[in-house]
């Protein structure tokens, strides 16, 4: 197992280097002038300012050298400095990542609970009303455009019903809990601030509904299909013949065997949400990774864009690895070595 883990980690290095190379090339080959966009139209007229800017960001060197210099500092754990804000990219990522991690984790958990529950019920009560409901939910969840659904929720639940707070992570004017992890739910509890915790939780409701809906669609569909297949296996008939209770048969015998495809879908879903959801974050004024990536790309802040790409790459690799480990845990027949 350990050897397998090590091998997987080593294989991921070229993938990550590939990601940096492609992002680097794309951000430098765009038909937009980095100096102009960052300095502004009028400042870019001043040769002295332009020269200082190019020197400051290493743009006066050949492209190949720039890339090697970037890789060099990357090895030392330095992701560079943001052109826009002059802060280390790592610091900036540490500011936007927690908001996204919190939102993605909560949404994935909700999607899993509802999706697996609905999928199981649909499979055991096949062609009943609940199966019909599950199939509808999974189609709607996958098909509905996220931004439209988000705007609709804001308009109905916040504006017309007043059941949810306006977009944002906390009520306007409330100071966020002193930073430990940057995740408001965690930090407020660590500081014993139940009021902040509830306020933050309340602000999660709408964005979590939006993101979980997509997840529920996928998870329900895959759970239902996978459970239907498992329930037709011989060992289920044996279990029934043994006189085991329905709950035990479904959860311990069928679900456990059906879990592998569910984990695969769930892992991809989580990685997707972790890499930031620009539209949802925009509508809910959620200062997460998606917003950061978008603003950085729009202002051609290439060190920031590369930092984001690298992190997203790491997320995908880590989650894929985690899912593979879980396979072995769920199904003892799978062994790595």
């Amino acid at each position: 197992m350990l050897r397998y883990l090590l091998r997987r980690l080593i294989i991921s290095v070229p993938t990550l280097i590939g990601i940096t190379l492609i992002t680097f090339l794309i951000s430098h080959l765009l038909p937009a002038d980095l100096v102009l966009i960052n300095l502004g139209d009028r400042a870019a007229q001043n040769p002295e300012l332009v020269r200082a800017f190019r020197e400051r960001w290493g743009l006066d060197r050949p492209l190949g050298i720039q890339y090697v210099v970037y890789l060099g500092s990357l090895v030392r754990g330095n992701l560079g400095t943001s052109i826009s804000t002059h802060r280390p990219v790592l610091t900036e990522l540490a500011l936007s990542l927690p908001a996204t991690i919190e939102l993605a984790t909560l949404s994935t958990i909700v999607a899993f609970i509802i999706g697996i529950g609905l999928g199981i019920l649909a499979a055991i009560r096949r062609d009943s009303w609940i199966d019909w409901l599950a199939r509808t939910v999974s189609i709607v969840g996958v098909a509905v455009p996220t931004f439209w659904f988000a705007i609709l929720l804001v308009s109905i639940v916040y504006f017309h019903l007043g059941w949810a707070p306006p977009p944002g992570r906390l009520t306007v004017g409330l100071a966020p809990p002193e930073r430990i992890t940057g995740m408001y739910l965690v930090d407020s509890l660590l500081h014993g601030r139940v009021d902040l915790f509830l306020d933050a939780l309340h602000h999660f409701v709408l964005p979590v509904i939006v993101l979980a809906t997509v997840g529920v669609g996928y998870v329900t569909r895959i759970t239902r299909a996978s459970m239907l297949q498992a329930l037709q296996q011989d060992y289920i008939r044996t279990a029934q013949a043994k006189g085991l209770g329905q709950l035990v048969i479904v959860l311990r015998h069928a679900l456990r065997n059906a879990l592998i495809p569910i984990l695969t879908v769930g892992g991809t879903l989580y990685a997707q949400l972790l890499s930031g959801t620009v539209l949802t974050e925009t509508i809910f004024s959620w200062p997460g990774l998606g917003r950061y990536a978008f603003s950085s790309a729009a202002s051609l802040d290439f060190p920031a864009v590369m930092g984001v790409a690298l992190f997203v790459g790491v997320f995908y690799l880590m989650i894929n690895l985690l899912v593979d480990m879980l396979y072995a845990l769920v199904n003892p027949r799978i062994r790595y070595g």
Partner: protein
Amino acid sequence: MNVRWIRSAVVTAAAVFVATSLNMLPASAQRTDVLIIAKDISDIRTPDPSKSYDISGVFLQFPVYSRLVRQRAPNFWKVDPDLAESWSVSSDARVYTFKLRSDAVFHAGNPATAEDVRFSLLRAKNIKGYGSFLADPIKSVEVLDPRTVRIELNDPDASFLAALTAGVFSIVDSKTVKAQGGVEAVGADTNDKAEQWFNTSSAGSGPYRLIRYTRETEIVLERFDRYFGPKPFFRQIIIRHVKDPSTQALMVQRGDADLALDLSVDQAESLMGKPGIQVFEDPSAWTVYLGLNTSLAPWNNPKVRQAVKYAIDYDAIVKQIMRGHGRRISSIMMPAMLGFTETQNRALLYPFDSTKATALMREAGVSRASVSLTWASGANYGALPLDRLAQKLRTDLEKIGIDLRLEPLQQSIFLTQYRQGKPETAIGFWFPDFMDPDNWSYFVTGFINRRLRWESPDGQRLVEEARMTGNAQQRASLYAQYNELLAAPDSPYVFLVQPTNLTAARADLANFRYHPLFFLEFELLRRK
């Protein structure tokens, strides 16, 4: 596991969820002395006033910092005292001497002195930030006594007094900023270490102190009780980042925000007349034109350029696309400013006359032409949505045989291409750095006109002379000639509109004053 147990757990969880949803509604009723503004603040790069140059950066700086002089709405062309109580300008407009008021103190308690002015202006120049080019004309800053400071410029420049109202010339507390690693001398671009400190603190002498700034989240300001001016009504001002304009509109309607600042024309229209809401309409500093690249057909033919000026149904642009929230312009300047009177603006307008346009096309010998039109797609300049404007221009020019191929570009790419002079036809705009006519002179100096491959030595001579002239009347006459030249039939500019700016506010807000460049005067705002 028991099925009944699961069921009761689910019911309890649902009940808790609904209860938190219902009980935690924001209490907007009791915030009399707290002002909440919904605004997109994602363009703020740095809260350091000497470096900042973005539009939302102005929002953060203006209530926090004072400058030597200021301009206020509604007469936003007049230069008024701020930290300086009086000043004198040498007859050649090269030396400016300021006498400071004696009662101004910074947020840390230090008095505002001539040394702070020297430090701030030189730091703005030497730090080589985004707005530093505005400080280029400064040759030296000299402290004559603790309350008198003398600024010498490299060349005569009559626009410099107005330039000093810009955010980059905010006066900072030199003692505090130095203690945080701030440097004003040559080399400040690498030696200055104070920038990050401005994320959490402020060193100004304005009516508000910065309490908290979090990127894409919020700016929290608190009233500074030792401000030298009138005491502001609001104890706290919170500028909440809300990217989506339709959400901003919803927040004002529900009372979760007092002001919404980035509304599109459709949203503002839908809010007009709603109970509890007032919509303010003020002139914006955007002036919009169509640029014709004179190096290629058909725009290389002066008669075709003239024809286009008669072929556009300008009133329909104002009435339909901007829904009446703006007006036509005949040159690049804002009508009613020095050198561009309302009368001159009206006199230079081209009528919409398709017969004349068709006749001019015939004279030009061009019956059909195809040319591309590029613009920053999705952008709004005040009440003007560009995508709809492009459609309208295409329809109008089709009628005289010109096929405008629409080629929208992402904003950064558009700016780059326009600067390189690549677009065949472009929707361009002007938005000034400060309110002096000199800032509108770039349409002959080579900065804008070269993108359209057009030169005007006469125009260049006019604006140069105007910049060096101290006498306001003489300047006005020179700029009037400049405007006439820009509006000439063969110029590459087809001037279109000046949109207004629309702001939605709760009905109980009073004393709303909007400056097209420096936005709100926070210290004047109050509840009825």
